[in-house]
Structures are given as structure tokens and as C-alpha cells.
């Protein structure tokens, strides 16, 4: 289907005129009202009124789909497109939409007379824009709809058009559903973002008590005290000592890097073996691995602690890394196996005929093809140790990892107890991890779906 430039431009112009103004107005109103509503300082009467405008403002986005729908209906009615939509229902919809429009005006009129003037202005503009759009598009529309109306001998339309389908299927129920969808997404976004924003605001608060953190972030009062403290605090008084945080960070970095290398090497080897060879005891091993991956490694922690103490392995990052690696091999093996099973076996066979050894097949053929899944495993293995608390706290009692060091800020019995500093430290750690996640999202989603379909 050809594009209809005029149709597009007309609609865009109209949309811009009304939607743009509406959006700007709406965002401003919501922000201002919510501040008025939430701050204790404002006068009660003002707050009461603010509550109402706040609710009214929430109503506004509902108007947008109605407007869009009206524009299309106007066009359709001008062209007498009764074939496309039942006329009576169309009229009913128009009536309902208009009722919404009027109700909106009334609500605003009751609450804010000043805004009412503004609103009426905008509405006139909107209706005008609708007319402009419809006039601009009329010609194109007609030709387009004529081609749509051609039927074949079985009475089926030859062409389908998204706008036509949209119009045909649009019911009041769907308009309400659309409104509901946006309201829901908005609500969820607020729920998701509020704690995070609070956390950011807390990290910039100069104080020790949670109660000192303002509910609404006040950028003017932000201070970097916590951040400076974080990077400079040293528990030992020795000169030239590395700050605690840097030390914990380096320890964790070494654990995470080593873990990443070991896990990638080991689980791709095991996954390769399980995906490519038949051998005795394969099922049993797979089954026991399946069972093993369901138990957190810290269930055997008591024994590990005793063994480590006996062999002098406590406070050794390498020993801790080995626990992580052993714990994550089973799960990752399944991921790798699932991926490698989808690499066609004919590749191996061809290599075998050409005289390649097992090792050559693995390194020259399978591994280059399995890079995405190895990326997925590598990221997971690297991220895993950063915020694991229990194992390091038991296995390295006198050497901090980032998580142990963070947890101390939240422990009321600790000398450094300070929830606000926890938020600062957590943010410093979480942001890089989130950035890595964002970059690796493609692999992560890939790993997820491959896990879901193939088990």
C-alpha cells in the first residue's frame, strides 16, 4: 500500500497542535499540583483545591484517544463510509465522546475557572484542527477508501488498511481499555520509580537519619558528603592505607573476574560434552546436576566453613571463587547445552570427515558459534559475586567484599550503621551493574527465551 503523504501531514499537524499543547499543559499541572498536594507548607484550602485539580489533570490524558478517534470518525462520516462501520454505533460513539468532552470542561470549570478559559481555547483549537485535518485529507482519503471497498467475487475486501481496521474495530470498550492501559502503565511507572528516586535523593542528603531525607527531591540542597566519605573512609590509621571501599571493591573485582573466566571455561566444556556426545552415565549426571542447581551453595556452608578453617583457606578470595564456580557450573551447563544442541551436527560431521580432532571441532567450529551464549554466561558469572552476602561473610570473616561492606551500613549493631550511607554505597555499585545489564540486555533476553523454550 502506498503511503499517503498528505494524509500523514494533515494528521500530524493536527496532532501537534492539540496533543503538544495538551501534553505540556498537563505535565505542568500534574507537577505543580502534586507539589502543592504533598507539601505541608501550603494552606489547607489550597491543598484541598489542589487535590481536585490533581484528579482533573489525571483525567486529561483520557481525552487524547477520544480526540484521535473523533478525527477519524469525522473523516469517515464525511465520506459516508457506512460500509466500514455501522452508522448507528458510529453516531453513538461520537455522542459518548462528546459527553466526555463536555464532562471534562465541566470538571475544570468547577475547580479552576481560570484554567477553564484556557481549556475552552484549546478545545476550539482542537476542533478546528480536526476540521483542517479532515479537509486536507479528504481527497486522498476518498481514493484510498474506494480502493479498499473493491471486493472480489467471494465478497471479501481485496485490501486491508490499518486505519480502516482500526475504525471498524474501535468500540467504546476499547477506548476505555486504551485509557486504562495508559493509566496502568503510568501507575506502575510511579510505583517503580518512587523508591529509586528516594534512594537517589537519600544518597545526596547530608545527615544520618532516614527522616532527614525529603520526600520530594530538592536538588538545591544536595550535598556530596556521603560520596566523599564513601571513597575516603579508612578504618585503619596506618598512613597510605587504601580506603576500605576501594579495598572491598578490588577484592570483589578479583573474585568476579576469576569466577567469570572459570565458569565460562568449565561450563562450555561440560555443555559441549553433554550436547555432542553419547556416553555412559550421561542421563544420571544430567539428572543430578538438575537437582544440584536447585539448592543454594550455602546449604553446605557449614561444612565448607569447617573445611576451610582446617585447611587455612578462610579469607582467601580464590577459595571463595571456587565455591562460586562449583555452584554455578550446573545451571550454566544447561544453558550452554541447550544452545549447542541447536548448532547443526552436520558441521561436526563435516569437520570430522576433514580430519579435525575433537579439540579442533570444539575450538574452531562450536566455540565461535557459541559466543552469544558464552557472553550471557560471562556476564552472569561476573555479576553474581558482586552482591552476594552470605558466603563471603562466613568464608572471609576479616576481609570485606562489597556486599559485606554495604551490609554493615544496614546492621544496627555495627559501628558504621547508617542507612543513608548504605543508599550511597548501593547506588555507586548498582549504577555500573545496571549499565552493564542495559548493554547486555540482548544477550540476557536471548538467554531467557532459549531457557524457556528448550529447558
Amino acid at each position: 500500500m502506498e503511503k499517503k503523504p498528505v494524509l500523514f501531514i494533515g494528521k500530524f499537524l493536527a496532532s501537534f497542535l492539540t496533543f503538544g499543547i495538551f501534553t505540556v499543559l498537563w505535565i505542568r499541572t500534574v507537577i505543580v499540583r502534586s507539589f502543592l498536594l504533598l507539601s505541608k507548607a501550603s494552606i489547607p484550602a489550597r491543598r484541598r483545591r489542589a487535590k481536585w485539580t490533581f484528579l482533573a489533570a489525571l483525567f486529561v490524558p483520557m481525552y487524547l484517544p477520544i480526540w484521535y478517534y473523533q478525527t477519524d470518525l469525522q473523516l469517515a462520516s464525511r465520506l459516508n463510509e457506512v460500509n466500514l462501520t455501522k452508522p448507528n454505533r458510529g453516531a453513538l460513539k461520537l455522542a459518548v465522546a462528546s459527553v466526555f468532552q463536555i464532562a471534562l470542561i465541566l470538571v475544570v470549570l468547577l475547580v479552576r475557572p481560570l484554567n477553564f478559559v484556557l481549556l475552552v481555547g484549546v478545545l476550539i483549537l482542537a476542533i478546528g484542527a480536526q476540521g483542517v485535518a479532515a479537509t486536507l485529507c479528504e481527497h486522498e482519503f476518498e481514493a484510498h477508501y474506494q480502493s479498499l471497498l473493491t471486493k472480489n467475487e467471494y465478497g471479501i475486501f481485496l485490501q486491508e488498511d490499518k486505519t480502516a481496521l482500526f475504525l471498524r474495530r474501535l468500540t467504546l470498550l476499547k477506548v476505555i481499555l486504551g485509557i486504562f492501559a495508559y493509566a496502568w502503565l503510568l501507575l506502575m511507572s510511579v510505583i517503580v520509580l518512587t523508591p529509586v528516586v528516594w534512594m537517589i535523593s537519600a544518597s545526596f542528603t547530608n545527615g544520618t537519619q532516614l527522616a532527614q531525607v525529603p520526600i520530594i527531591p530538592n536538588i538545591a540542597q544536595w550535598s556530596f558528603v556521603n560520596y566523599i566519605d564513601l571513597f575516603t573512609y579508612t578504618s585503619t590509621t596506618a598512613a597510605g592505607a587504601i580506603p576500605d571501599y576501594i579495598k572491598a571493591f578490588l577484592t570483589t573485582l578479583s573474585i568476579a573476574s576469576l569466577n567469570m573466566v572459570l565458569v565460562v571455561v568449565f561450563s562450555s566444556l561440560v555443555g559441549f560434552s553433554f550436547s555432542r556426545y553419547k556416553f555412559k552415565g550421561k542421563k544420571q549426571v544430567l539428572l543430578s546436576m538438575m537437582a544440584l542447581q536447585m539448592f543454594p551453595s550455602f546449604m553446605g556452608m557449614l561444612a565448607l566453613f569447617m573445611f576451610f578453617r582446617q585447611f587455612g583457606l578462610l579469607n582467601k578470595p580464590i577459595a571463595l571463587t571456587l565455591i562460586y564456580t562449583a555452584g554455578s557450573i550446573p545451571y550454566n551447563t544447561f544453558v550452554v547445552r541447550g544452545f549447542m544442541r541447536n548448532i547443526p551436527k552436520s558441521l561436526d560431521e563435516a569437520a570430522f570427515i576433514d580430519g579435525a580432532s575433537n579439540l579442533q571441532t570444539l575450538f574452531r567450529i562450536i566455540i565461535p558459534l557459541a559466543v552469544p551464549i558464552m557472553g550471557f554466561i560471562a556476564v552472569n558469572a561476573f555479576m553474581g559475586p558482586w552482591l552476594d552476602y552470605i558466603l563471603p561473610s562466613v568464608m572471609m570473616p576479616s576481609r570485606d567484599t562489597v556486599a559485606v561492606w554495604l551490609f554493615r551500613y544496614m546492621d544496627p549493631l555495627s559501628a558504621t550503621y547508617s542507612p543513608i550511607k548504605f543508599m550511597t554505597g548501593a547506588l555507586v555499585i548498582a549504577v555500573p551493574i545496571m549499565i552493564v545489564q542495559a548493554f547486555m540486555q540482548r544477550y540476557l533476553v536471548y538467554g531467557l527465551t532459549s531457557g524457556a523454550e528448550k529447558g
Partner: protein
Amino acid sequence: MKEGTAIKKTPVDLGKKVLLWLYRTFILGIFLFFKKIVVSIGLFFVNIVKAAKEHPKAFGKGLSSFFLPGLGQFRNKQWYKAVPIVLMFVVFIVIELSTSNYIFALGGELNQYPAEDGVLYFFRDYGGYFTAGIWGFFTLGRLVLGNMYRGERIVVNDNIFTWKSADNSQVLLGEGIIAFVLIAILIITWVMSIKDAYQTHRRVEDGGEQESLQTFIKRVWTDYFAYIIIIPSAILIFLFTLVPFLFSFLVAFTNWTGRISLGEMLFKWTFFETFGMVFQSADWLKFFWDVLLWTIFYAFMSSVTVYVLGLIQAMIIESKYVVGKKIWRLILILPWAIPGMISLMLFRNVFADNGGLMNQVLAQMGATESVKNFLRALGLVNQVDLEVGLGNILWLTGRQNGGLAKALIIIVNLWLGYPYFMMLITGVLGTIPESLYEAADIDGASAGQKFKYITLPMILRATAPVIVTTFTFNFNNFGAIYFLSGGGPGYPLEQIPQSVLVLGAAPGQTDILISWIYKLSFRSTVNQYNLASVYSILIFVFIGLAAIYNLSKLKSFWEED
């Protein structure tokens, strides 16, 4: 679709199906397992007799490897096989002898320090790593600090007369396990050497080539490549996962608690005594049921709610009404990107009693009272807690009624967990073929019908295993409890029976099994190692059930390729 395939599912059918499944998986499975073992043992002997009759020479070589591992290989002129096998046995014997004190026993120590009242632990006093290890495993030690033994007083550690040192049950148990494992490896090598000696002779007899070192290495490298590349990981898993699990399990059958200060006291095998205490004492049983029911409820609810919300989100974002899908997705995926521990601790702060975001916002809006009334109406809070809170709502610390804390844990888990399913289901939605919907359109299906008969079944089929995995994950989701509520609020003191209170081992109201286990082993005033192990075993049973169910559903797992 054929006619008559749609049989109405009645509850009776479902019950029968479940029973049948249980029967097939367990009763039949266990029966078949034992049958297989009995049959294979029988076959083993039959085969031996057969081999002795039909191939006496080859059998003789096997027999020589039976008496002296490696001898059969040597007789087959395969020194390159004989040497490693012999070397392995020599190493074992050297370890045994070098760690033993047999020489002192022969040197007259037995006469110098005679056994009193016939009490002499020969392997304890003189045995090497393996013999002493096995002795220690079965006895878990006999002598502690201050005991009189062979006319001498036992001390903490005596470097000259090692038998004068006190026993440490925990070390003995650990060393026993390792000794057993090493002996098992030795036996496997031994059996393999017998088999190899027999088979090599047969191959030569049948006109096969005598394998040279090079071809042997090449053959092993190609034929056993699958095993060779697994070995490093197997060793790692073995040492750092299996042996510790084994140790933890065995502790359940002892009476080891923190009250036993090792070196001065011993713990011993009590077999099912701890299990008896858990299941017979009403005090413990009450807590066990409380914790278990909450664990199951939590695991179930947190999996289901997360799935449902993920589904709703995916459907809404992917629906045609929504513009700016990428931006919405970016915002709504945020909880997934934040590391779990940080989000949980953040929510601990959000719901803090004093100065937490929730209480602050409610106070600012003047809505504290109405929320209190609302929670009261739901039966989630107790009046006493509200008064203790002095105007603040005790979200996670209300002792009189743990309902609020429990509800919050599930809600916070929902916040954390739904993006995973949102992304998963979005991915699955992309894989549903468009043709299905087109066919449905032609048949005149409504949107609701399309969702019910196309979208939902497709999603469920693709994600069913993930739901069970999520359930098992949540069953053991230690972090969600420990970082958010720390297992708290504790039960009101008057509700804790004296026998549990003195041990300091009572769970909090939101503790799930795994976090209670952690408390029992590491945090209570008296570390209840054996109790913790008993509960670990119970977790294994529950998770095992779920795992078996999941595996039986997962066809792709069993498909050989």
C-alpha cells in the same frame, strides 16, 4: 480435531491422574530401580561364571588383576597401563603407611602402655589416613580432654604420642567422608583394571592388534573425550558442592549442636533422634508447620503473582493502543536491573518504622489513620503494635501480627520479580505465529477468544517449566527474606515454648525454611547444627518432588539427539 477427543475434565479424573503420576514416578520407579539392581547383580555373577568357563585364559588375567591390580595388564604386555594403576595403589599404600603409627605398635608401645579393662582403639591409635578415617567415621571419636586411656591422661594435642590427643568428632566426620570417597575411587580403578585385563586378552585372542602406547592414548583421547573435558568441573563440584552437602546431611543424624565444644566433648551418631524431636515434640512441630506452610504459601504466591503481573504488563505494553513501547519497557524493567540485595535493602528502608519513606509520605498526607483503619479492616495489624509504633506503622516489625510483614514480603517480591516474566512473555509473544490470529479473524473470533484460545495456551506451554523453576527458586529464596525482614518480626515471647526459647532457636514470623536453617546454624545462641541439617533434608525432599515433576514434564530433556 477428531471428534470425541474433548473429554470433560472432572475432579475425579484429575485425582486419578495425580495418583497415577505418583504411582508411576515413585512406587513403580522405586520398584524398577531395585529390580534393576538385583538383576544386574545376578547378571554380574552369571557373567563371571560364563567368562571363567568360556575364556579361562582371559579370566586368569582378570583374576591376576583382582589379586594384584596392574598384574593382568603387565601380563598383557601393556606396561603403560600397569604402571599408572600400580602407582595409584602404591600412592594409596604410602599415604596409609606414612600417616600411620603401626611401626610404634610393633615397637612395643602396646606393652609399654597396655590397654586398661580391655579398652584399646587400635585403628584410632595406630591406623593410617584410611583406616583411622573409617574408624573415626563410624565412632566419631571416643576420647576427650581429661579422659584416662591406657594409663595416661588425654590432652588437647600430643605430637609425640598422637593417641594421647583428644578426638574431634567434626574433623573425624570430615576425614571419614574424604577417606570413603578416595577408597571408592580406588575400588573403581581396581574393578576397571580387572575388566580391562580380561577384555584386552579377549581382543588379542580374537585376532586384534596389541595396542601400542600411542594408539592407546589416541583412542582414549578420542573415545573418552567427553569424560576428559568433564573431569575438572566434576572435581570442583565434587569438592565444593557434593562433599559439603554430604557432610551437612550426615550431621542430621548426629547430636551435634553448639553446646558441644569440640575437643572437650564428642558428638555421636544418634540416627533418627533429631528427626524424632522435630516431628514428635509439639513445640518444635508447631514452629515447623508454621514455617513450612508459610514457605509453601510464600513460594506459591510469589511465583503466581509475579507471573500474572508479568503477563499483564507484557500484554499491555505489546497491545496496539500503547505508543512508545520502548520507553515504557525501559522504565518497567528497572527493578530487574537493580541487584536484588540492593532493592531488598532499599525496601527495608522504605518500610522502616522511623523515617521510612512509607511512614513519611503517609504522615505528610495525613493519611496514616486511614491506612491504619484499612489495614485493621484487612486483619493485617494488631492494636498493640499500632500503639507500640507511636504514630508510625510498624510495617515489618509488628510482633503481635506478622500478617502485614508477610503481605509486604510478597508485594516487594512482586516489585522485584515481575520484569523477568514481562520480558520472558514479551519474548514468547513474538514467537506466536501471526497466521494463527489471521485464521481466528477469518473464523470471526473476538479479542477475548483469541487471548483465551491462542495467546494464553501458547504462553503457558512455553513458560510452564519456568514457573516450576521459579517456585523452587522462591522456596529457597534466602535473600528475599533475610535482606528485607531478616525473618522478623519475632513471635511474641509468650507464644514461644520454653524448650525452644532456651535454645534461642525460634524462627521469626516471616522466616522460610532456608532462612531458619541459616539462623539455626549461624545465628542462634546455641548453634543447632543437627536441627538445621534435618530441615535441609526436608528441603531436599520438597524440592526433589518439584524437580521430578518438572523433569517428567520436560520432554526435551529426555530427547536423545
